[in-house]
């Protein structure tokens, strides 16, 4: 179970996208884990062959727990070579499973002894296109005795729909140690059914969609779910996310000696340039001021040491690339800051495309593990209807956070006249263990300088 951020203690495995015997390559998405920040696609960190899946679907596992064993290609070339005997299920999972459902340890989805003849390669997530306003499509799974893996993969489509339709449940807060298919979990969450009270019909007691449907029919008069989905629910849990933010920000304020500085940057040049650029292109090719902010910050972070990198037990380690974490506010509350890798080397058009992509997936609760952890500096832009400035809190283990206020017309002195110019307040929150005020000031003035030549960004 990888750590997907300073605020993460555990995660719930909700989906396997590989099975034993599959070849995987670094960067492939192999599993989906539910966290406070929504469902995160877990990317594998090395090449190899999947030997065994160690974690059971639905188990909440601490950071560091074993999810799967990956061997090298030579080991897999000899299929008769037995993998090491499986260790007992991680104690945490077992402990959680015990009170709810004693059998659940046996309900662990074993790798299918007879792998399906059809090769199931690592599938890229393929969201089922559903009318966005459609309610949760609780399409019953046919109750045939398919291999468990196939059932899991089929059920996958239940949770692959956009977040407007089928949130991956974590709001029920119960039954997390119970073995159940993702589709069953989704329906149970929607209906407010505690999975611990549902009898599973699969061997070992695992709960499938049909079991939840039966339970739902039996409890039609039951009280409404605790959190009735007044709106189509999101792919994340607002309260859990709030707790995650609280934990990370408390740690930040406890451990990081912040210093702050604000600088007013003239944006008239950039505003005029952007208007000219955008006037002649289709909407899909237009740029936002936010892309200029990210690019200028990334370039400045590359030039001025002490602001781009991570601070851990060994002290500050600078990063040679600038992975720009972009703070995305989520409707209804909450915030994520997925990283755009090597933002300093992207053209404005590429950066804009990357931002659109990552914002869309942040809203959908479908970010990737590398995006959650690789950020080396965070940029927060308050948008065009916000307030003048914000003094932010650094997201550990990063050492700097840059906030752009809402650009607006300001009275500025140019030479010996006062002019009305577009301008923005840029605020740096930086870690005094990694830099000091002089560095911070150089960094902000560098951002200023870069924004005066938008065409060069």
């Amino acid at each position: 179970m990888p750590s997907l951020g300073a605020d993460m203690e555990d995660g719930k495995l909700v989906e396997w996208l590989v099975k034993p015997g599959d070849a995987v390559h670094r960067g492939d998405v192999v599993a989906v884990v539910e966290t406070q920040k929504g469902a995160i696609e877990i990317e594998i960190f090395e090449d190899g062959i999947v030997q065994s899946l160690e974690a059971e679907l639905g188990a909440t596992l601490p950071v560091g727990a074993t999810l799967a064993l990956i061997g090298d290609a030579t080991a897999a070339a000899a299929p008769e070579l037995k993998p090491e005997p499986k260790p007992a299920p991680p104690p945490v999972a077992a402990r959680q499973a015990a009170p709810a459902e004693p059998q659940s340890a046996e309900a662990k989805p074993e790798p299918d002894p007879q792998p399906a003849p059809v090769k199931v390669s690592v599938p890229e997530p393929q969201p089922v296109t559903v009318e966005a306003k459609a309610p949760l499509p609780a399409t019953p799974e046919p109750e045939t005795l398919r291999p468990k893996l196939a059932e899991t993969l089929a059920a996958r489509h239940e949770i692959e729909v956009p977040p407007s339709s089928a949130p991956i449940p974590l709001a029920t807060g119960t039954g997390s140690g119970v073995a159940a298919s993702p589709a069953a979990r989704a329906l149970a969450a929607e209906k407010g059914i505690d999975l611990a009270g549902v009898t599973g019909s699969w061997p070992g007691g695992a709960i499938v969609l049909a079991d939840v449907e039966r339970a739902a029919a039996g409890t039609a008069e039951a009280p409404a779910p605790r959190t009735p989905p007044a709106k189509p629910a999101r792919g994340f849990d607002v309260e859990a996310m709030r707790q995650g933010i609280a934990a990370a920000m408390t740690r930040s304020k406890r451990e990081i000696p912040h210093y702050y500085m604000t600088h007013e940057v003239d944006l008239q040049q950039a505003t005029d340039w952007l208007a000219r650029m955008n006037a002649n292109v289709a909407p899909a090719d237009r740029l936002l001021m936010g892309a200029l902010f990210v690019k200028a910050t990334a370039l400045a972070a590359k030039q001025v040491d002490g602001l781009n990198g991570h601070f851990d037990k060994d002290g500050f380690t600078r990063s040679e690339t600038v992975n720009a974490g972009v703070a995305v506010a989520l409707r209804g509350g909450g915030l994520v800051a997925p990283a755009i890798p090597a933002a300093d080397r992207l053209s404005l058009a590429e950066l804009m495309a990357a931002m659109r992509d990552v914002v869309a997936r942040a809203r959908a609760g479908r970010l990737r593990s590398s995006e959650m952890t690789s950020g080396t500096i965070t940029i927060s832009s308050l948008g065009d209807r916000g307030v003048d400035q914000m003094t932010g809190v650094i997201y550990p283990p990063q050492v700097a956070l840059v906030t752009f206020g809402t650009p607006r017309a300001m009275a500025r002195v140019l030479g010996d006249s006062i002019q009305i110019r577009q301008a923005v307040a840029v605020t740096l929150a930086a870690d005094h263990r990694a830099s000091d005020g002089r560095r911070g000031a150089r960094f902000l003035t560098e951002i200023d300088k870069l924004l005066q030549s938008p065409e060069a960004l």
Partner: protein
Amino acid sequence: MNRDTLYAVFIEELVNVAPDLDAGTINRDDQLQDDLELDSMDVLNLVAALHDRLGIDIPEDDYLQIETPAKAADYLAARCK
């Protein structure tokens, strides 16, 4: 396309851009950013979607004229003529 159709198209694309909005609860006078919490990226995506769907290219200077569903329907109806 008449104004009612354009209103419906606008709402549909709005919900596509912001899938966590419920079409049934959006009021005709809701301000996209203040009431519906769209950010500048969402607005741009909405304008791009309307361009794809209707062939109407809404320049940045006109964004204020689509700031609510009602205003947007009027604006699109005028641009359709």
